Structure formats: C-alpha cells, structure tokens
C-alpha cells in the first residue's frame, strides 16, 4: 500500500444517490484475479450505455469523485474499491457511505471523506459549472479545497477522520502488523472469554 499524499487533481461530480457496489463493479467480473486489474471495468455497464461523465475528455485524469448520499451501498465486495483505485481515483467525497465500502477503502489506501450534504451539493454544482476544475485534498491537515483555478465556489472544508486510520494511510501500512503486535492482549482476552463461556 502506498503512502497517501496530498491530492491535487480533477474532480468529477456524480449526481446519483445510492450508487451501489453492483454498479461500481458488476458481479460477473468478481472471479477475475486481482492481478488482472479492475480499472477498465469501473462502472462497466453504465459506461457501455454511453455518455458517462467519467468518460468525458474534460474529466480525464480525475482522482476525486464528489458523490451524493450513500455512496458504495450494498454488497461487501472490495472489488469496488479496487476498480476505483485501479482507475486512478484516490478520493470519494460524499454526505454518507455504505459502511462496508467505507471500511474497505482505508485498507486500500483510498480515502472516503464525509462532508455535509449541503456542501457536497455546492461542490458538485461548482464542478459541473467548471468541468475539469481541480480540488486539493490534504489528509495531513484534513482539508478539502476547491474548485481551484476558477473564480467560482472556491472554499475550504475541514473533514473528520479517525486518527488510527489517518496514521495508517499516511504511513501506507495495513493494520495486521499492528494487531499481531498485540498478541498478548488477544491471548489474555481469549483465556478469560473462554473461561466465562466455555461452549464457544
């Protein structure tokens, strides 16, 4: 996993609420090997229908999606994060997320940011008025700034992130190593737990 560094990149507004992980990556692709890459399959069926915003030339190279509520709801498939990440995306900003998608993101060096609904709406509107405009996502300082370079809707928001997750993202490490270092606490817990409920 790479260290998460400040992103300054084109941001794409996605207007639909409840974008589920079946749309992000359809089920029939899930048995492919991880090494084959999922980027070209991101939103496969929506894109094949034509006219999808991510395929418009002004959004080429986008690394940020600004979405509506409940992004990534539905199936637990981590492939949804792989598809976004393999396609070069690094951040999704939305008023709310599917819980499992949200958790999966951090495990892949991918940053989901919750901002208030009103602010997400404003940001999407500003990005729609200025296609191809960039935003800056600074994890260290926990800020989203943008759209930059256009005199329209410029602003800065602070976002919350759990400190442990921030630390792991900035260091580019997963949590298994840290957990394994807590082996004594886990073993002690299990002894106590089994003494109380031996049938488990």
């Amino acid at each position, binding site marked *: 996993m790479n260290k998460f560094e400040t992103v300054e990149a084109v941001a794409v507004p996605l*207007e*639909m*609420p*409840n974008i*589920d992980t*079946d*749309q992000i990556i*359809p*089920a*029939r692709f*899930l*048995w*492919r*090997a*991880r090494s084959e890459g999922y980027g070209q399959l991101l939103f496969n*069926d929506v894109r094949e229908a034509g006219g999808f915003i991510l395929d418009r030339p002004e959004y080429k190279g986008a690394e940020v999606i600004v979405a*509506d*509520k*409940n992004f990534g*709801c*539905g*199936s*637990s*498939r*981590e492939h949804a*994060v792989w598809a976004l990440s393999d396609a070069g995306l690094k951040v999704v900003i939305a008023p*709310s*997320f*599917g*819980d*499992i*998608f949200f*958790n*999966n993101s951090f*495990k*892949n060096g991918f940053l989901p940011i919750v901002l208030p609904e009103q602010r997400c709406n404003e940001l999407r509107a500003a990005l729609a008025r200025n296609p191809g405009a960039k935003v800056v996502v600074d994890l260290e300082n926990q800020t989203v700034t943008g759209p930059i370079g256009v005199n329209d809707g410029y602003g800065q928001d602070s976002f919350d992130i*759990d*400190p*442990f*997750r921030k630390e792991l993202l900035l260091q580019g490490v*997963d*949590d*298994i190593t840290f*957990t*394994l270092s*807590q082996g004594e*606490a*886990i073993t002690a*817990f*299990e002894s106590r*737990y089994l003494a*109380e*409920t*031996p*049938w*488990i």
Partner: protein
Amino acid sequence: MKTLFDKIWDRHTILVRPDGATLLHVGRHLIHDGSRAGFRALAAKGLPLRSPERTFGTPDHYVSTASHDVNAIPEPQRREMVTAMTENQKQHGFTMFGLGDKRQGIVHVIGPEQGITQPGLLMVCGDSHTATHGALGALAFGIGASEVSHVLATQTLWQSRKPKSMRITVDGTLPPGVTPKDVIIAIIARIGAAGGTGHVIEYAGEVFRAMSMEGRLTVCNMSIEAGARAGMVAPDETTYAYLQGRPYTPSGADWPKALDYWRKLPSDPGAIFDVEHRLNGAEMAPMATWGTSPEHAAPVTGHIPDPARAATAEQRGAYERALAYMDLKPGMRIDEIPIDRVFIGSCTNSRIEDLREAAAVAKGRTAKVPTMVVAGSGLVKLQAESEGLHTIFKQAGFDWREPGCSMCVGMNGDLVGAGEHCASTSNRNFVGRQGRGARTHLVSPAMAAAAAVTGHITDVRRLMAGEAA
C-alpha cells in the same frame, strides 16, 4: 443501562486505543467461496489461520444450482473459486460443509441451522448480508476482503468508532398475507436505503416477539438494505427453542450455563437508543418494489409514484432514472406490473417456512412464467421434500434446484435476462443485480408464488381467499 448491542460490544472488546479505535474479538468467522481473496492475502503475508475452530464455511456464491458436481461449473475461473475453498480447507483445517454434504447451503442459512450462530456472539463474514445472524441476538456484520484476511490472521477486527444504536418498534398484529419480508420492506420504504447508515438496529415490539426465528432471520437479513451495520432481535424463548439440540449448540452442562448468559442479553429497560422509529404492524400490507433501490417500494394495493410529486429534486431524478430503467410509468397500479420470471430463494427467503409459504399459494395452480425455487441448504431441501413441497412446486411447473445463492447475486449462471421483470424473494433490486438489464421486484415468497401463477404482481390475499389465478 445497556442495549443488547452495547452488551455484546463491551464483552468482545479486547482493547481500546487512546484515539478510540477498538479491537474486537470475533467469536465466529463465517466464510464462503468468495472469501478466496482473504486467504490469498493471508498467504502473501505467510501467516497461518489463527483460529480454525472458530471458522466455518460453505461454498454458495459461485456454485451451480443445476448440479452440485463442481465440474458442472462451465467457466474455469468461476470453478476455481469453489475448488480453491476446498484447497484452503485442506491447508487450514476450518470446518467446511462442502458440495455433496447435505449440510451445504447459503452461509447465512446454515449458520443458524447448525447452531453455529448463537446469542451474544460477535460474528463476521465477508458478505454484506451477515446481519442475518442478528436474528438470534448475535452482533453480526459484513466485512470486506482485507478485513477477512485480518480476521483469519488474528481472530479480531478493528472498529474505528462504535456504531450508533437505533430501535425500530413494530407493534400490533400483522394482517393475514403480510409476512416478515413485507415488514422489512415497509421499514426500508419508511426510513430509506440510507436510513440506518452508521447504526446497529434492534427490532423490537409485538410483531417481532410473535415472529418465528425464520421470520426474524428475513428481517435482520435486509438491515443492510436500510444501510445499517447490523440488525438484531433480543433472544427469547423462541430463540432458545430454535437452538436447543442443534449440532453446534451448547449441550449437557453447558446448556443451562448458556441459557443463563443469554437471558441477561436483552436491552435493559430504560436503555437509551440514539434513534427510535415506530411502525404499526396492523396497517401493513404485502409489499413490492417498483424501482432500483429497496426504498422504492409500495403496498401491492398502491401505485407507482409520480416523480413530479417527489419531495426533492434529488428524489425526482432518482425516481425518473429508476422508472426509465424499469420501463414503468408513474401512476401505474403495482398489481399491474407484468412479470416474466420468478425467483424464490436467497439468504433472505430460502428457509423452510418460506418454501411452505410459497407452496401454499402454488398448490393446485400453474406457473405462467419460468419460476425457480432454490432451497437455502441441503437440509432445508430434504425437509421440504419430506413434506412434499417439491411435488407441489413441480406440479405447478416450478423448477426445483440445488442449494446456493443462485439468482440473487448474478455470478453463478442463474440470471434474469435483459429487460425481463423478475419477482424475486431476494434482497436487492439494484440495476443489473440479477443480470445485465434485469428488472427486479422484491417480494415475499407468497407474493412471488402469486406472481408466478398470474404473470404479474398480484395481491396474494386474493389468491388466499380462493380466487382463481
């Protein structure tokens, strides 16, 4: 004063970091043929499976329901998902109910069936419908592949923050023809597909107290469709009666000890929930979805809403897109929606009571459209056959198949064709969920059978009253 959720969370907390991140112990880890990525990550790190005795699995997502011969799976990569599970079992020694074992089935059906699922346990599985197990008073939720590998390696899971609590109380008595599936669809229609995001739901009230274990499993199963992390029902006599004597249930001297522990689990009187919702069960009707989100649902007596009258511009856009995909018109009666195909099965509705409910409607009638019935496990299938349900289905022209996730999930060959409307007892009506271009209408098993014998969404209460299909 603690909630059921608080009690299980606290009991499974190993440590809390100063920043609030909590390490939880996993009592039971369920796995399936889609869990391969987790084992690959384990292998990549050169780590062993920490607790094979707490790990239980069965192949379900990728298996064929036409035949349980693994060679019946035509695509080599798909076949490999199933065979890899057998190889992982040989290497790591977890408990597995494989193809050819009558205990094989959908992982969320066999957990309770085998007594692996128990009150007060913390359970996880690399599948979003893990909340199903909350029906027995466990705290159970879905995780992704990376978290699966973390659990395999450590038997623990990090949670950055504790979810909030929500109580949904449904009092009253359900009218005839209204099933647990209708209750949960009505709840989602009320609170929305994101209504439970970040919360653990406890279902409370007269309706759930009176509900069978099978019904509670259906309700908790769809908690994720309301965005919730988990759904739970407090254990009670129904729970204990269901569990007693199952293969992995505590027995002998452990049984009274377990009962003693379980009886202390229900939320304390006066425990505070972050959010409360109340619905009246007596006012509920059989439900069907008309759109592409589980919240796009209406009583069978209702109509498809007019996007022009939607509460917000955002909702109007969502309704318009959904109706365009579904090829349905605003104002249309729900019971005039044409149906081309019917699926009865999935972790939501493939248990014995579901099959009885569908058979009661199918009996003496004939399918007008292709209809598939997929029992949730080999044991459910055997039970149904011992009751003669398969004969009723076959005489009605329904296809009686081998257990698996089947047409719910669109990854094992059981697919709805592009443009077809499918009345389905599964849990998601997302765009393309049951196959590319498929149009899903979520209904109860009784409503699915009614749609099968009439060729359109039909108020099952009419058929129950003896009306000809």
